[in-house]
């Protein structure tokens, strides 16, 4: 196997606060292959957005390493980072909120090309047209302003801008969360088409677990700054091995009244990231926690099938034997 496009080794991103360090990302190792979509899920405050910003070096990590194509970029200065920036781009939840409202859509999409000194003005205009066609807006959109567009169209502008420099990795941070249901599938399908046509890789962050299954090749599950499970998408859905993944999956509302569950669902809430529990961070909410879990943090262990889990008592494929295993242990 060739070197991964992007690799994180024990990445840390701690922020100083008055109540002590906030360990938003607390030692995460993972890799993204060229052309792959890695999904990242977890409840709010788990550190998934911080991880994304640290790995494309919008933040300078406080520990660990970031490797792009095997080359270390962890502590590069802004000017040394510049040639690498075009290889990694980002799509936000509301792209236009972050953009200059006085610029036309054409100017917004041409801006990254200008910053990187690519082509003449005429060549850039052609490229903008091409990009607008590619994201389904049509070349006429170039002269309009983003505020005259609907939410879905604005996200298309954000995507056109992100792919203008032909990046190899696009980090998508909740790109569909603010969109209407009927529009979400348009954007998800378009992102899939772009990946198929250009071979780019995505890091796709979302809290919409059912949508993730459609777009991700592999999925990582984060809890309080740690990766607790990572596996091929299908394996993770068919047989989650971490009790937290199981909990998340069971919480997804199913669009079928016949599958309705009327049980109480009292599973507690995420503890404060300023006061992370000892041992396994999930033990305070885990139905299977043993004394070992309160004292010893389980490492992420990856099997030959590429299924990694950080748990002392991982779930087996057959749930009925699980309780027995814990009692025997």
């Amino acid at each position, binding site marked *: 196997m060739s070197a991964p496009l992007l690799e994180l080794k024990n990445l840390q991103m701690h922020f100083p606060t008055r109540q002590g360090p906030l360990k938003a990302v607390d030692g995460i190792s993972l890799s993204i292959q060229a052309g792959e979509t890695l999904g990242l899920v977890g409840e709010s405050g788990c550190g998934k957005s911080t991880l994304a910003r640290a790995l494309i070096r919008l933040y300078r990590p406080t520990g660990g390493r970031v490797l792009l194509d095997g080359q270390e970029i962890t502590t590069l200065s802004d000017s040394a980072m510049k040639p690498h920036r075009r290889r990694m781009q980002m799509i936000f939840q509301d792209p236009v909120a972050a953009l200059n409202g006085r610029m036309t859509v054409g100017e917004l999409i041409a801006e990254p090309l200008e910053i990187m000194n690519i082509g003449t003005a005429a060549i850039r205009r052609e490229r903008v047209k091409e990009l607008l066609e590619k994201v389904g807006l049509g070349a006429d959109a170039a002269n309009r302003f983003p505020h005259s567009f609907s939410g879905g169209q604005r996200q298309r502008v954000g995507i056109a801008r992100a792919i203008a420099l032909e990046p190899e990795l696009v980090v998508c941070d909740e790109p569909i969360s603010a969109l209407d*249901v*009927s529009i979400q*599938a348009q954007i998800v399908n378009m992102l899939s088409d772009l990946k198929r046509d250009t071979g780019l890789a995505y890091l796709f962050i979302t809290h919409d677990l059912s949508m993730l*299954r459609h777009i991700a090749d592999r999925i990582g599950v984060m809890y309080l700054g740690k990766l607790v499970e990572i596996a091929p998408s299908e394996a993770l859905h068919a047989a989650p091995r971490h009790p937290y993944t199981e909990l998340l999956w069971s919480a997804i509302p*199913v669009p079928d009244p016949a599958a309705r569950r009327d049980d109480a669902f009292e599973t507690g*809430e995420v503890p404060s990231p300023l006061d992370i529990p000892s041992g396994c961070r999930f033990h305070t909410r885990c139905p299977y926690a043993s004394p070992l879990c309160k004292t010893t943090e389980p490492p992420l262990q990856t099997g030959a099938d590429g299924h990694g889990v950080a748990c002392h008592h991982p779930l087996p494929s057959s749930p009925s034997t699980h309780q027995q295993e814990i009692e025997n242990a």
Partner: protein
Amino acid sequence: MTAPLLSLRDLRTEYRTDRGTVQAVRGVDLTLHRGEILGLVGESGSGKSVTCMSILKLLKRGGHITSGTAVYDGTDLLKLSEAQLSRVRGDKIGVVFQDPMSALNPTMTVGRQIEEVLLQHRKISKKAARARAIELFKLVRIPSAETRIDNYPHEFSGGMRQRVMIAIALACDPDLLIADEPTTALDVTIQRQILALLKELRDRLGMAIILVTHDLGVIAETADRVMVLYGGQVMEQARVTDLFEAPQHPYTRGLLAAIPDPRRSDSALSPVPGSPPDMRAPPSGCPFAPRCPNAMAICLTPPDLYGAGDTPRLRPAQYTRCWLADPAAPADLMEATG
């Protein structure tokens, strides 16, 4: 059959803005029975929230109701004075919003905020109000109710804040709770807790709930009956199982095809093409016609809301605003599109 708790007839609400008048609600009829959970589902701009907020005249600047009635327990709320309405709000009808932080007073303990509601609507002592506040905290399952009651809103997590909001809404034992996207800002695990709580409260207290959401999964988990709104009108309404088993309106079908089923990976996503209409100048006929795969020439004329009495194909209590359900529509046309 007993009289409905709430009955809206031909509700129309518009918003005057600098850039024109938005026709947010265009003739909505709604019937709600005691103890029923009615889901209002639709996309942004469909009119689902404005319909709810019109009931209590809680409209943002520029909004006003141009016609209709909202008969609640025998009284037309739309004819009440502001003073009379303020006695209904928080007493007979409780409201829960998407963002509890912006609805709570950050400078006051949550306990005092509940007590204020009680003292405004009930002749009770401060001591009794406090006891009731603790009781309400226990009802919505906030742990350590006796001490948490003296905390400020920022000391609660998002999920707990939403429980506080529900406790405030329930303070005066309302017969109706309006919940406008109550779980949209919450994580899925917390969402499931809040939805379970709402169902439990309905069962224990017998109140009716109008649940506004854009999430069909939330509807399937929670509602007894559903109304699908689009372009300020009801496109379809049905009992929840019927809506998911036998959706009639092309918009409902489009929505259902556009969402993933978390239990399956093979289901391809079929987006609804196009964008929602500009409600400053809504389409003259069916508002969904410009995006509808089944649109015909007649769709430029507004269709009626058809029920099982018009079209045998519809289930009892199912209604659809679509020319395909017109008794004069050729039967094979519907089969071809179904």
